[in-house]
């Protein structure tokens, strides 16, 4: 046993080293580029370390280009999308996990949820644009909120189903026999137990909606509703790629979801198994 373990350890070290380089280096490059001045990017030789690190790109992105408005929009839109997705997800997973519905219905709904993910956005963006226009929601955050909730519903349903199935029905039934209504049982008994799953689903959905670009571009037209990725895209212009500002924007963009992920890692790890592999 010892021998085979050290054999694996020997293999592991170079593998991890390669991974560290492959993942840490592009991120380092992003961070380093975000601290460079424009002049430094126009030199004949590449510099691995910024020569005179400056926070000017960050100031330029947030203040001069006014991206903090877009950042705020992103937070609002993604936060509300998460909320709507969770509510809808619960409304769908509660019946199929806590109530007695036929397995065919349960499987059917789960499969339908999975199939939603197969919609290629580019194929439906134009009809959605027509719908949004008719409803008068063009350049309004609500349009994005509804669509993001919809697109992340499959994930939410699968994750919530996993967590909710974990909780034995006996606990709720005990509450019923104590005279609690279904809603009370849900609120006071089920919800606290399902909280880790909800949090994990919230963080993952937030992460996915945070970087969404295509719908944000098509369904908005001014900083009224534009989100951060739309602004970041704007730094790739026809005649110039504003590398340092782009890198700064990229670093800002990854900061918030990253922090959330770190905070929620234990729950996310549990939630990522989608409740498929369970044997109790």
């Amino acid at each position: 046993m010892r021998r085979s373990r050290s054999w694996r350890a020997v293999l592991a070290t170079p593998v991890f080293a390669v991974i560290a380089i492959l993942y840490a280096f592009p991120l380092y490059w992003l961070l380093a580029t975000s601290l460079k001045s424009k002049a430094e990017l126009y030199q004949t030789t590449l510099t691995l370390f910024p020569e005179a690190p400056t926070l000017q790109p960050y100031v330029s992105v947030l203040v001069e280009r006014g991206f903090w408005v877009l950042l705020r929009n992103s937070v609002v839109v993604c936060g509300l999308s998460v909320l709507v997705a969770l509510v809808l997800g619960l409304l769908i997973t509660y019946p199929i996990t806590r109530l007695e519905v036929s397995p065919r219905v349960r499987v059917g709904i789960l499969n339908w949820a999975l199939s939603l993910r197969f919609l290629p956005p580019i194929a439906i963006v134009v009809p959605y644009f027509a719908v949004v226009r008719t409803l008068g929601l063009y350049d309004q955050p609500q349009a994005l909120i509804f669509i993001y909730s919809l697109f992340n519903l499959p994930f939410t349903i699968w994750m919530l189903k996993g967590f909710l199935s974990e909780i034995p029905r006996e606990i709720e039934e005990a509450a019923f026999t104590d005279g609690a209504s279904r809603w009370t049982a849900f609120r006071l008994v089920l919800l606290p137990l399902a909280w880790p799953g909800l949090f994990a689903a919230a963080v993952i959905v937030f992460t996915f909606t945070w970087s969404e670009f295509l719908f944000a571009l098509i369904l908005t037209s001014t900083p009224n509703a534009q989100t951060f990725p739309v602004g970041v895209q704007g730094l790739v212009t026809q005649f110039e790629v504003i590398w340092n500002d782009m890198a700064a924007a990229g670093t800002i963009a990854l900061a918030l979801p990253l922090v959330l992920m770190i905070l929620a890692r234990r729950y996310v790890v549990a939630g990522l198994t989608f409740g498929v592999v369970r044997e109790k």
Partner: protein
Amino acid sequence: MANVTARPALSRVGAGRFTRQERLAYTMLAPVFGTILVIVTYPFLLAVVQSVQDAAGREFVGASNYANALANPLLYEALGATGTYAALVMPTEIVLGLGLALLVHRVVRSTGVRALLFVLATIPLVLPPIAVGVIARLIYAPGYGVLNHLLIVTGIVRDEINWLGQPTTAMPAVASVDIWQWTPFVYLVLFSGLLTVPREEIEAAQVDGASGWQQFWHIELNYLRPLVLLIVFFRLADVLRVFDHVFVLTGGGPGNTTQLLSLYLYRIEFKYFDSGQAAALAVMVLVAVSIAYSLVTRALPVERR
């Protein structure tokens, strides 16, 4: 797990075919499910209507948009490119992700290191797609690309490699970005799956003298199989939708080598302004995907209860 057929008499309060529980369930499901169904199918119906109109959206042209779409050789080039992309990306991500998950699960014991790997793995997922595309451009671009710089400095190659301009290297370059971005996701899911494998079974197998490989093949794989299938579905769906980083990196070039399906659709809609043909393509893609999906789920049930 509740036994569905043995319903306690108490629940049989309501008359009719459904128990009270079922009626409550459907009452909860119906409005939500119904609304979502409408939200999803309405644009689909709009797309169908648009697909039988001309480019300006006025006259009825029957199936000619479909005929035009299918007659365009560029469509098949796009399908081929997408197929190549999927073939490069999916097996690699799954094999690498699985291998990493196993490696970390077996070798790394400290929770600190595991947590660090977790954080590293989530970073590619939270980057905006355009930032991923730009990083990729900084790596592969002619002239100032870091990759060529490093290869030349370490003496591995003598001249610059034209990554994005040669058909043989353009597709791998574009695919590598996808692999870089999504292998950590596969790793995360499968690693979490490995954590749910009961220790008793593993220890029992080790007592019986099973090798690491046998452990994997007979025990862990059983627990991972549904997850792997789920990942295959999700990644396949994503591959059909991929757009951003390819657009930034090559724009579909050189020629049409990296013109994936989503880029092709974009071109028809926003360069040719043929909304009729674009709608026809969208409808065909949606129908094809639905058919493929239902066939696969029938053959390999994902839900095991």
